[in-house]
């Protein structure tokens, strides 16, 4: 799931400076699950904005926001409210914001910061597990991704900073390589680590921000 966090309200007000009317967009998927852009949060934002002197012309929870045709359909349903607004405040991940922009052609403001692709450990607790690297090597890593879960993204770990199974960067972070070794040992597959893993092919990876993948 894409994990997002709400931007500080002052920052959002800053975006809306000089504007009067705003239409709010939320998303039924990830933003709802992590409680940053679901119906409840959209209604809260509506109340806050009105209190701050803005006029909310309306709102919609798209299912999902990142689906451009779905966004177009949704905006058509709320045509008047969308058209009369100065801008859209989009309470979704960055992809949803851009999809809303493309679907409406209106000025858009992001209400959230998109932070990582996470697993849900329990309600309200998320952990980054995948970096969308495009070259999955979980097979030789016992199902634990070092690119994501090792602070240094090492392919041949651990580093000398691994102490009692914790990462030198922050003792609350488990050393991914310690975890990988333990897991492979349990599986009787420790020999998978004998082979030296070659440097990553960053051109084929999304996370390096290189050529946009389609």
């Amino acid at each position: 799931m894409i994990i997002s966090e709400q931007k500080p309200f002052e920052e959002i007000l800053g975006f809306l400076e000089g504007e009067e009317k705003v239409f709010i967009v939320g998303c039924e998927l990830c933003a709802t699950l992590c409680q940053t852009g679901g119906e409840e949060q959209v209604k809260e934002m509506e109340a806050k904005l009105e209190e701050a002197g803005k006029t909310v012309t309306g709102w919609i929870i798209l299912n999902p926001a990142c689906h451009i045709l779905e966004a177009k359909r949704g905006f058509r349903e709320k045509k008047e409210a969308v058209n009369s607004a100065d801008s859209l405040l989009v309470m979704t991940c960055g992809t949803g914001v851009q999809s809303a922009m493309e679907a409406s052609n209106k000025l858009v403001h992001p209400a959230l910061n998109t932070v990582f692709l996470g697993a849900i450990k329990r309600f309200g607790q998320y952990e980054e597990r995948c970096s969308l690297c495009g070259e999955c090597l979980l097979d030789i890593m016992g199902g634990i991704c070092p690119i994501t879960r090792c602070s240094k993204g090492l392919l041949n770990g651990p580093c000398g900073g691994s102490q009692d199974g914790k990462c030198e960067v922050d003792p609350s972070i488990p050393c991914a390589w310690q975890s990988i070794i333990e897991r492979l040992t349990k599986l009787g597959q420790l020999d998978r680590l004998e082979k030296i893993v070659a440097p990553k092919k960053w051109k084929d990876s999304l996370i390096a921000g290189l050529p946009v993948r389609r």
Partner: protein
Amino acid sequence: MSKLSEALQSGKFVVTGEIGPPKGVAIQEMLESAELLKGKVVAANVTDQQSAVMRLGSLAACHLLKEKGLEPVFQMTCRDRNRIAIQSDLLSAYALGIENVLCLTGDYVTLGDHPQAKPVFDLDSVSLLEAAVQLQQGKDLAEKELQGSPRFFLGATVTPGASPLEPQIIKMEKKVKAGAQFFQTQAVYEPEKFEEFMQAVKYLDVPVMAGIILLKSAGMARFMNKNVAGVHVPDSLIEEMEKAEKKGEKSIEIAARLIRELKGFCHGVHIMALGWEKKVPPVLDAAGL
């Protein structure tokens, strides 16, 4: 051939030192430390933005040391440069007559004074060693032929005090496979544990130099115990430092004692004086080297 390589091959007990470049361009103190170490150590490491704190570069400092007649060990980390820059710096090092290269992964960015910098880690210590070996064989990582190949004496690090130890040994084996020809360890303060470590890695058949960090105070020892992975200063040594009136002398005494105790099961020592380079010659004297 590098003096360090020759010395380790000869079977003599080898001593290396370490120099940290300044945060700036005032190199006088660094050059004075070099003078103090010259003739006492076979070679001196120059750290590469140690602890991710931005400093004068290892490459330039190694060149300055070499000009002064002290053989350098070029420490190179993977934190700040991608594979293009790394290979280039390796070629540059060789062009400046630098042969000894210590290949490290590098401390993470947030440990230093530029925590918002983008960490690179395009290579790690293992692939860095492989890259250096490939350059020696006349090709770069893109399999392109080089106009002139460098020749290095490649080293790596290991943490004998790591807990648990097995992952370190797995990694050390990979480093040897990748081309590491010598090792310098993280600081050792427990000779018995170190002996066990050396027994465990005997099969790798590679020269290992035990790391010695001069203790400056009991506080420093406690700090390292808390913050530096794999370093453990036992309570007995902390007490000795605390009780000592003359910390400097006690520091020399402890270091010399450690060296005497470790000497029997390693190929040399790597002394990290952390600014106390003046004390290195008396340590060596007291250790009987």
